[in-house]
């Protein structure tokens, strides 16, 4: 190779090497999910020598009578509920704040942005106590209902900024044609905010899917467990001795995220670049 092309190839080599090291734990998890437990703890290679798909069957059956099918279904229901809640509530809130002229608008918008800075830890205990009083503990309600009330200030803000960027003339033209605020929102603005809605939906899904803390607190009976809590219980019940099935279920837990990554990677990266929030 001539020195020039070598110089051009070097960064690629460095990048690829870094990626191999970086993604190795994920590859190891995937490979280990097909290995017998004894092989996992004795071999560095991620390719299984004794291909063991039975890990998935054994893991899927779960522990103490509750299988991962239950956890998977619970996780899906909560994540889908949260996505619908955030998309609906954040978009109508953002529309009202960005495009309608009403008394108290400045104050309302300032409060909405101010709640961005409110750390969830300080609300954790009182929220728990309130949901406890309502009899909602050990149901999906504390995890889904707040999403319908636009309390994720981040997504309100994201949609607000997006709506502010759309030309005013749209609303004016719609009003001249006799559209009220609701129809203007539904027919004119909502279709144009699809990118912001998609970002809201994808990140709400990922964050809810990965959320461990609140699901641990609110869900107490195995029939209610989601994947993160179920995985933790599986770890405790087997005290880490059933590594094969555990890696299989870890893979199952991450599978929807891989699918999202494959289909929406551009969107994910752009969402972060434009809004600056963490993934």
């Amino acid at each position: 190779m001539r020195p020039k092309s070598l110089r051009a190839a070097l960064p690629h080599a460095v990048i690829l090497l870094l990626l191999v090291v970086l993604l190795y734990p994920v590859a190891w998890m995937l490979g280990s999910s097909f290995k017998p437990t004894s092989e996992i703890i004795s071999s560095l290679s991620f390719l299984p020598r004794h291909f063991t798909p039975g890990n998935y069957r054994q893991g899927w059956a779960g522990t103490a009578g509750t299988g991962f099918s239950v956890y998977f279904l619970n996780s899906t229901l909560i994540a889908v509920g949260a996505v619908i809640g955030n998309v609906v509530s954040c978009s109508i809130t953002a529309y009202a704040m960005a495009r309608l002229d009403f008394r108290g608008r400045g104050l309302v918008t300032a409060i909405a942005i101010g709640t961005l800075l409110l750390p969830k830890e300080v609300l954790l205990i009182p929220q728990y106590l309130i949901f406890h009083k309502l009899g909602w503990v050990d149901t999906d309600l504390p995890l889904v209902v707040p999403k319908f009330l636009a309390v994720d200030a981040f997504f309100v803000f994201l949609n607000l900024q997006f709506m502010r960027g759309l030309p005013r003339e749209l609303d004016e033209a719609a009003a001249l044609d006799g559209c009220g605020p609701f129809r203007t929102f539904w027919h004119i603005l909502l279709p144009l905010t699809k990118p912001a809605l998609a970002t809201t939906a994808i990140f709400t899904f990922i964050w809810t899917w990965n959320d461990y803390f609140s699901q641990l607190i609110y869900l107490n009976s195995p029939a209610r467990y989601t994947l993160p809590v179920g995985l933790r219980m599986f770890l405790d019940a087997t005290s880490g001795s059933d590594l094969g099935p555990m890696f299989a279920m870890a893979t199952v837990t991450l599978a929807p995220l891989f699918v999202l990554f494959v289909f929406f990677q551009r969107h994910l990266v752009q969402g972060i670049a434009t809004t600056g929030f963490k993934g």
Partner: protein
Amino acid sequence: MAAAAAGSTVERPGRGRARPGGGAAGTAPSGSPRRRRTNGAAYTLLSPWLLGTVGVLAIPLLYSLYLSFTSYDLLSNPHWVGFRNYRRLFSDDPRYAHSMWVTLQYVITSAPLKLLMALAVALLLARPRRGQGAYRALFYLPSLLGTSVAIAIVWQGTFEQNGPFNGFLKLFGVHGQAWVSDPSYVRWVIVALAMWQFGAPMVIFLAGLKQIPQELYEAAEMDGAGWWRRFFSITLPMLSPVILFNLVVEMIGAFQAFTPAQLVGDGQGGPVDSTLFYTLYLYQRAFQMQQMGYAAAMAWVMIAGLGLITALLFWSSRYWVHYGD
């Protein structure tokens, strides 16, 4: 709603003079439709947000402040104890002081190291070359997966006695130990997990790097400045607002870390309380010991701490953040 206050006649930038709200429907009798008021429609659309902000944010915020001055075990009603919870935190709870120390160590190591990693990779990817989009996405992948319980479990396995990390060390003849059960190393395993998720700040750095005018580099190159000189005199100062942003976000995030402490450690803060992160201790006090008042006080101290750190960062930024002229 019919009586419009004087406040509504305040000039709004770019939107003309808002007219004092007319009838209940708020429609202007004539003229430009942009001036019409839509109080009814607006508050209808805002009703979920209002309910949420009052019911899920404001009331809990006040309730939490009240609880922090009480003793409450869920069984009997909360009773007022004044500042006792706060006094106990600072004078009579060595585990609390320890958890604060563990968390601070984690925050001041993990956030800068993660940003260093993010910046290094961003610089590597900044120059347009084939495969840039795919590389960027793959480097971002750990950020997407990293907060999952599944990854925490895999991470623990990776640094076990027989895990792949030690297998890797063996290639160089180093005999590794069980890092996760050693109280002096487990913290670094968790720091490594945080560093692994450098994708989000990396993407933000990349966006920042793109904003730096290329002419600056060309001029510097003509003046004979080498790579390091250009890095320290152009890249770093031009990127400093982005660095500040990332630092604030990452430090606040590190303060709130819970999953890695609960899953890479033994779940109770061990071995020997080396993973007793602030949020983990708060969780134990609230949900394992049912000391809601005490835990609420912990939360308020945490908020104060977060506020203080953010304020310090912004104060220090006067000396190192360059906002262009």
